[in-house]
């Protein structure tokens, strides 16, 4: 059951991701991106990470994609002309294939070992994923959390400054 679920959503994710790069209309790209993100969210659930799946949907599919589509609409971008063959296409394809090959080799060769933590499946089920995330975030990772909030504030200010016509 889990295998079928994984293979189904992995296939959909790969195809929709590929279509993100291929679609000539940016709106289509954006919609395919949403599809990919939702597939990822499902995969997160299969990994016993329901909270991550939720914020994947909320932040990525909800906020970022909406923002992107909003900008596409705002700028009124048309469909790209059908491109003829370019050097960039060949180079890009070659490089990504090489990269895939290298990472594949690495993954196949290596064994992900390390000190096992105490967050077992039973623990997640008994405590709840959200609570575990919250515990870690507000105890051990409190300072990075605060810094991230400052980063977001800076980003807001930066975005306003950049988009204003006259500062």
């Amino acid at each position, binding site marked *: 059951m889990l295998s079928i679920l994984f293979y189904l959503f992995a296939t959909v994710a790969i195809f929709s991701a590929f279509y993100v790069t291929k679609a000539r209309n940016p709106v289509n790209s954006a919609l395919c991106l949403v599809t990919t993100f939702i597939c990822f969210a499902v995969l997160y659930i299969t990994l016993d990470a329901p909270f991550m799946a939720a914020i994947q949907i909320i932040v990525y599919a909800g906020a970022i994609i909406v923002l992107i589509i909003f900008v596409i609409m705002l700028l009124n971008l048309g469909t790209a002309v059908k491109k003829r063959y370019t050097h960039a296409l060949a*180079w*890009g394809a070659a*490089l990504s294939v*090489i*990269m895939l090959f290298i990472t594949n080799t690495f993954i196949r060769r290596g064994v992900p070992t390390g000190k096992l933590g105490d967050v077992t499946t039973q623990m997640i089920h008994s405590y709840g994923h959200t609570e575990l995330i919250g515990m870690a975030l507000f105890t051990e990772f409190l300072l990075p959390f605060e810094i991230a909030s400052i980063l977001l504030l800076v980003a807001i200010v930066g975005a306003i400054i950049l988009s204003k016509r006259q500062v």
Partner: protein
Amino acid sequence: MYDYLWLIPFFPLVGFVFNGLFGKKIRNEAVIGGIGTLMIFLSFLVSCGNFYALLQDSEKVHQRVIASWMSVGDLQVDWGFLLDPLSALMILIITGVGTLIHLYSIGYMHGETGFYRFFAYLNLFCFSMLMLVLGNNALVMFVGWEGVGLCSYLLIGYYFEKKSAGDAAKKAFVVNRIGDFGFLCGLLTLFWALGNKGVWTINFVEIAENAHLLESGGLIVTVVTLAFFLGACGKSAQIPLFTWLPDAMEGPTPVSALIHAATMVTAGVYMIGRMNGLFAMAPDTMMTIAVVGACTALFAATIGLAQNDIKRVLAYSTVSQLGYMFLAMGVGAFTAGIFHLMTHAFFKACLFLGSGSVIHGMHHGYHHAHLKDDPQDMRNMGGLRKKMPITFWTFLLSTIAIAGIPLFSGFFSKDEILWWSFGSNRGHWLLWLVGAVAAGMTAFYMFRLVFMTFFGEQRTDPRAKDHIPESGLTITIPLMVLAALAVVGGYIGIPAILGGANHIKQFLDPVFGKAIALNQIEAHGTHALEYSLMAVSVGIAVFGIFLAWVMYVKNPALPARFVASFPGLWKAVFNKWYIDELYDAVFVNNCKRIGTFLWKGFDVRIVDGIVNGTAWVVKGIGSGLRYTQTGFLHNYAMGMVVGVVVIVGYYILGK
């Protein structure tokens, strides 16, 4: 009281900052001059207080540190002051004479455009000189040493619009630099040598305490002291570095009086006195100093015989008297050297200020008659004693003092030096002979100066001769005070043989006594010998005066006949033995030639070639690499990915 030691250099610094920053705005000469004089007078008062406290105190060496300067390893350098009898005497001379000269300058510099500038520099000079004298370690002394050099440069070049003044300032600076090089070499070598013995210090007191670690009479101590002596030569205008001092007379006369007669040029003597513990350990250096001092005394005196510029005569006289001080230091008569330094400061400052008063009057006369004659040329003077009575009498008293006539201050100090150069175990009768002859010449040319200026017919242009007034009070008061000091200043050092207590010797004993006793320097001889030497030197001086009287008052045609009979000799003396020309030919021109070669040959071809070649290569590479910078985002992104792939691939596949 000693806790207020820092105030002594601080007051002139305040004056310098005030006049330097606001003087141009204020423009009021009374305020500027008043501030300048008041500041140095305040430090004179503090000096007096410290001097008095030191007299009462049984402990004679006091150090006060106001701040730490640097602390490197075992070496600790402070902004510290040292008060001992030597520096106490020096600060009294500097601030006392300095106050009088500041006061004098108010009158003398009246109406000059750079009035505030002059006072600012003068205050800065006093500050530097006091730092030099009071510093408790060699680095603080060096700060003052360089500071007085700078002020000397600035003040010689005070009339910088005149080319000769600018040249003289540069000459003084460059020649002093050679001396400073010696000073630094000596300091660093001493530091290294003492450090090798485990004592990393440049503090004078500690140097004196640890001097015994070095081998007495050894190579190191000789080299160190010779290097220090080179520094002293530069600052105090001794052979071979004396040529800058006569040229320094381009500066205003108060500057000549303060810097180039009373204080700065004696810094070399002071420095040797400060390091007496080291110098006493190096008999070879002492010998060199004595010989150089004696030669300078004689040599400068001969040049002084034939000069016609009133200030130049005094300049050569200063060089000659400095030679006496070095002679004293060289034969181990440290006290006599410092004593002569003090009396010389009084009478030479008075002489310079008197000559300034004369020049001032002459200038006034020529200005009135719209003439452009040289107001400093003695051939245009004569008969001024009735026009300028105060100037004349003070000048005459100082001249008698410098000539070494008994009962005047110069006699006691000079005679002490001559006695030591004969009787000391570091002395020699030849040194005495040279000194005595130079003393005779001194008497001769000084009285020649007096006779040509104040006696006989007035040779001034008739249109100007009746408009030469006596100078005002600000000028005559310092003259009178200094003349009085020139007369009585010697009474603190009446030698035992004349029934005196020689107070100054006892006073300075804590500074010099140890080194003198340790190295067994002493003057010995019978009283009869001492009396007869005294009589001979007085006789020579009187003879010199008589000769001057014969040649310049009784029979004024004699000098011309003398010149006619020895034309070559006279010409050589008149042209200062062609020393400047010799230096030009040997050092200056060759330096210029080397400089020109380095400029046209080395700098233009090789240095510029390397620089231009580098630029050319970079330009070539740049124009080649420019093609890789397309400006398209994709190419950069592609480059990044290629880089990532290569690096990651190397780490993953390469292993």
